[in-house]
């Protein structure tokens, strides 16, 4: 499976992660698409608390987000969050993701997102049919889509 992404989404993602986390705290955004589409055309920045080693999304926000997605006939395809140093998927990331059903992606950006604004050093993973996370290569699984 391949995830398609509008180019401006990655730019907006880095802008958001940097502005919120300031290279000091972790931050998270969700990439969304129309239902049955694999083209990411929007991102959502949740209400969350954060520190240098983690984040937690506000409970009421999660419920409202799922209601909003339903109303708009949209879906979350991926979560994108920062780590202060190396990018990897921690046990917390594995266990407490927004979505844990097959095909949901997670992208971890190193250095608090303060690097080059590219996917260099990023860690990309997807929920497999077994329910376990499986690392994938962002250079093949993430494809730029269309014009902005």
């Amino acid at each position, binding site marked *: 499976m391949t995830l398609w992404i509008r180019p401006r989404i990655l730019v907006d993602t880095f802008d958001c992660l940097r502005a919120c986390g300031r290279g000091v705290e*972790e931050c*998270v955004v969700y990439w969304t698409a129309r*239902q049955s589409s694999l083209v990411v055309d929007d991102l959502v920045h949740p209400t969350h608390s954060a520190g240098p*080693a*983690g*984040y*937690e*999304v506000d*409970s*009421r926000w*999660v*419920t*409202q987000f*799922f*209601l909003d*997605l*339903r109303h*708009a*006939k*949209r*879906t*979350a395809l991926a*979560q994108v*969050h920062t*780590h*202060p*140093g190396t990018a*990897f998927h*921690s*046990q*917390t*990331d594995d*266990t*407490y*993701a*927004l*979505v*844990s*059903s*097959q095909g*949901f992606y997670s992208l971890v950006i190193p250095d608090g997102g303060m690097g080059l604004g590219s996917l260099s050093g990023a860690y990309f993973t997807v*929920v497999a*049919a*077994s*329910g*376990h996370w499986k690392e994938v290569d962002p250079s093949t699984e993430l494809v730029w889509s269309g014009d902005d």
Partner: protein
Amino acid sequence: MADATQHDHVVVTYNGADQSIRYEPHERVDAVLKRALDLFNIQANRHLYGLFTEANVELPDGESMEKAGVRPGQLLILRQSTVRGGSPR
């Protein structure tokens, strides 16, 4: 012969998608939760999921649907009880 068991339905939404789920008023919440997890094909961390009302109240697993205040046709949200991430140092 007609089935005398009373069945109702709730609508469960998860990540933008809906499923209609049949339940009996005296059935425990966790039994309905299990059916929801199966329908949405959620394999991992199932024990961390719950059914929430639109007011963000998590239904207690051990209660009956009726005692938990669920009404036929009600919209429920399937989600992880806690959503977080982190990089332990």
